[in-house]
């Protein structure tokens, strides 16, 4: 087990290296010259050239890639072209809202979607099942920003139950913090809920056909114990796998959700950086997101052993 964990952690190195190469190459693939953007409309070609040199943009590709990777390993993600602040500092300032949003969404989505899928599988073919599946199709097909604006309109503007937008740090209390996150989490979570509910239903349907479920019934086990103990634990592996893969959905959705609800998080930082062609920031954020994604899925692989004793590493 321990050796496996070490091996898996080592295996993330080439993955991250490839991601790094892509992220770095962005600068060359993307149209537009950052030096020209920073210099502004009034700049002479000499000004642009000077800025390019000061950014190190005139050195050869591989040399710059090497220097960049070396800096990252030391924890230095470079300096923003636009604000002149270290990228790592900018990320640190913006990470709390995004992590909060993703965490709340994750908890909300799992605690809604899994029971939904379980009940749909149990009541397969009934109106409950059809309602869950209908909701899942809706969740998939309505874009995050539409759900977001709709929720904000109904629950914030019309009913005045929750704040329209903004973010309050958890350091100022749990109440204000969660109040600001409920609507964004529902908006961001709708796709995720749909995805998890569907996979839960499909896996549960298969598990409920198994002989050991019949055995559990023959033992006199109650319906809840059959669904949540006997069946769900057997269905857990595909479900947590999808939860892990779905983290990518959350990352993408966070960018949009943060814009809709004016949350000063990494998503907003990313959008702003893209608009300003602030490449060090874009690179830093993408690297961070990739790293989180790889790490979460590594964690999920290790979680398998918790649910299924037949899986041994």
């Amino acid at each position: 087990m321990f050796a496996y964990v070490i091996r898996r952690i080592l295996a993330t190195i080439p993955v991250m290296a490839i991601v790094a190469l892509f992220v770095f190459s962005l600068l060359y693939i993307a149209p537009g010259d950052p030096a020209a953007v920073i210099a502004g409309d009034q700049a002479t070609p000499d000004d642009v050239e000077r800025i390019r040199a000061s950014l190190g943009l005139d050195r050869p590709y591989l040399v710059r890639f090497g220097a960049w990777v070396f800096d990252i390993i030391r924890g230095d993600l470079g300096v923003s072209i636009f604000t002149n602040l270290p990228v790592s500092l900018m990320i640190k300032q913006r990470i709390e809202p995004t992590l909060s949003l993703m965490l709340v969404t994750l908890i909300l989505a799992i605690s809604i979607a899994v029971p939904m899928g379980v009940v749909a599988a149990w009541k397969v073919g009934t109106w409950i099942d059809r309602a869950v599946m209908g909701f899942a199709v809706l969740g998939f097909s309505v874009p995050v920003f539409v759900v977001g604006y709709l929720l904000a309109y109904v629950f914030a503007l019309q009913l005045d139950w929750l704040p329209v937008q903004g973010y309050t740090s958890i350091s100022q209390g749990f109440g204000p913090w969660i109040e600001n996150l409920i609507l964004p989490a529902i908006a961001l979570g709708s796709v995720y809920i749909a995805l998890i509910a569907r996979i839960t239903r499909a896996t549960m349907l298969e598990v409920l056909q198994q002989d050991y479920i019949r055995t559990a019934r023959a033992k006199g086990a109650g319906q809840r114990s059959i669904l949540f103990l006997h069946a769900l634990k057997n269905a857990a592996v595909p479900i947590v796998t999808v939860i892990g893969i779905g983290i990518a959905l959350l990352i993408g959705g966070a960018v949009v959700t943060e814009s809709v609800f004016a949350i000063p998080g990494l998503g907003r930082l990313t959008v702003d950086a893209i608009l300003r062609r602030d490449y060090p920031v874009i690179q830093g954020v993408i690297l961070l997101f990739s790293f989180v994604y790889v790490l979460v899925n590594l964690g999920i692989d290790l979680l398998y052993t918790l649910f299924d004793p037949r899986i041994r590493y």
Partner: protein
Amino acid sequence: MALLEVENLQTHFRAADGINRAVDGLNFHVNARETVAIVGESGCGKSVTAMSILRLIPEPPGKIAGAIRFDGRDLLTLSDREMRAIRGNEISMIFQEPMTSLNPVLTVGKQIGETLRLHQGMSSNQAEARAVEMLKLVGIPEPERRVREYPHQLSGGMRQRVMIAIALACNPKLLIADEPTTALDVTIQAQILDLMRDLKNTVGAAIVIITHDLGVVAEVAERVIVMYAGRKVEEAAVEKLFRNPRHPYTQGLLGSMPKLGSSLSGEETRLQEIPGLVPSLKRKIDGCVFASRCSYATDLCRTISPALEEKAEGHIAACHYAIKEAVAA
């Protein structure tokens, strides 16, 4: 009064193209501490009968009618909650597939302990201690270690022992064993049968054993019920049935059983087969259900269904032509 009385049991399944009468008017009883075998080929309704007794048939598409009286109570009229209190407690069941009938993600101890916690209100610790005892009782070595293991760490024979331990943990009055040895090696089969017989005496349970293996029947059963196409066609004490089968179907079943060493003694080694197939259970059959495959069948058989009659003392068969002996009144 018998422990279990099944009266006019009809288990039907609604299918797209009609109603499948898997069990159609079955009557039988099981006395306390008795071992009754239900035999017949695949699709004769024997497993459905077993599942019907515990009401494990999904409804719909299934539908169970008739009466199943257990200890004087009609199981078909009980609420789901009352039925759950009986399952695994007063009536328990062993299934054919030990490889897939145990939950792969729960420890053996937890699976044995579950019935104890459910029906006897034991704490987890008590249940685990009792699980160890049960494992010892069913002859699993190192029960303290095995109780923490998962099914995939056990062999097929050991898993069936665990199934027996689960079934007997609450000292049930009736044990239903649905093909308990079919999936096992022959040597293991004998061990499991011996174990069931021993434990039956220890626990004092009656057994309904469902099998297509007449060897198993001869080994364990006291009384035999032969089923064909969802109906009982013959019933007798085991010696009577083997010595003097009355129904042509039973005769066919016995004839299709290989005899050990028959080729050495120069006998004809070709086994008899029963020609044809089990008729579709979706059509209503007017005459004898076995007529289409019976070499003795006449027009009478094809038009009028033979009643179950006592052909000799304690020997019932449903055949117009079965020889009827004088039954002492």
